[in-house]
């Protein structure tokens, strides 16, 4: 498993290649890529992602370990960026490798649900009129209930 919290971009193709070549008998690799969306009025200049540096890496690693215990996974990867990001930029990715697709899909969804609401990141949206902190989404909190 690998967890990286970084400001620079990543190459999802290389990451998936690396995951697939990690030597296990993978049959299914699922990836999720989060991208900075524009806001409803198309006025987003950029986003600032703040993190809690001491906690982020450990918190994410704990959720990845939970996923590896709960599903039959060969490997898992989480990359999450912080700092200034523009519309269309990649924010983060999750990838899971398993023998069977059900394990790969379920664990990727589990990790996404936890990253959304339990990893210490906070998104700020900046427009020409100022900025605001992104509000948590009620459905994201509810999504945790199914796990």
């Amino acid at each position, binding site marked *: 498993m690998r967890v990286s919290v970084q400001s620079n971009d990543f190459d999802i193709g290389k990451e998936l290649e690396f995951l697939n070549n990690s030597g296990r008998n993978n049959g299914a690799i699922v990836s999720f890529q*989060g991208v900075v969306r524009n806001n409803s009025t198309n006025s987003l200049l950029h986003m600032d*992602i*703040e993190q*809690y540096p*001491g*906690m982020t890496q*450990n*918190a994410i690693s704990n959720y990845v370990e939970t996923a590896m215990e709960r599903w039959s996974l060969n490997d898992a990867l989480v990359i*999450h960026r912080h700092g200034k990001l523009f519309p269309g930029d990649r*924010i*983060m990715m999750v990838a899971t490798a398993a023998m069977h697709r059900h394990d790969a899909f379920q664990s990727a969804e589990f990790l*996404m649900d936890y*990253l*959304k*609401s*339990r*990893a*210490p*990141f*906070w*998104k*700020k949206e900046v427009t020409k009129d100022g900025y605001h*902190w*992104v*509000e*948590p989404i009620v459905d994201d*909190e509810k999504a945790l209930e199914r796990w």
Partner: protein
Amino acid sequence: MIKVLYFAWVRERIGVSYEMVETKSETIIGLVDELRQREPRYEIAFADLSTLKVAVNQELCDFDTKLSGASEIAFFPPMTGG
């Protein structure tokens, strides 16, 4: 002395990203009440605890968690990662 950290709009309302705090409280909620009585900026930041989360030693916990063993406490709004 406990290191207390603030993130996102909590940090903005309090005006610092962290500070060292001397406390006689035994729980997090006690510490919050102490801070509230210090200055209006704390009162504003901690006005509604239902919009806040807290971590002790970098792990999420509840506001009634005991402070014994705590070396680092962080207050922040609900996370919006992913």
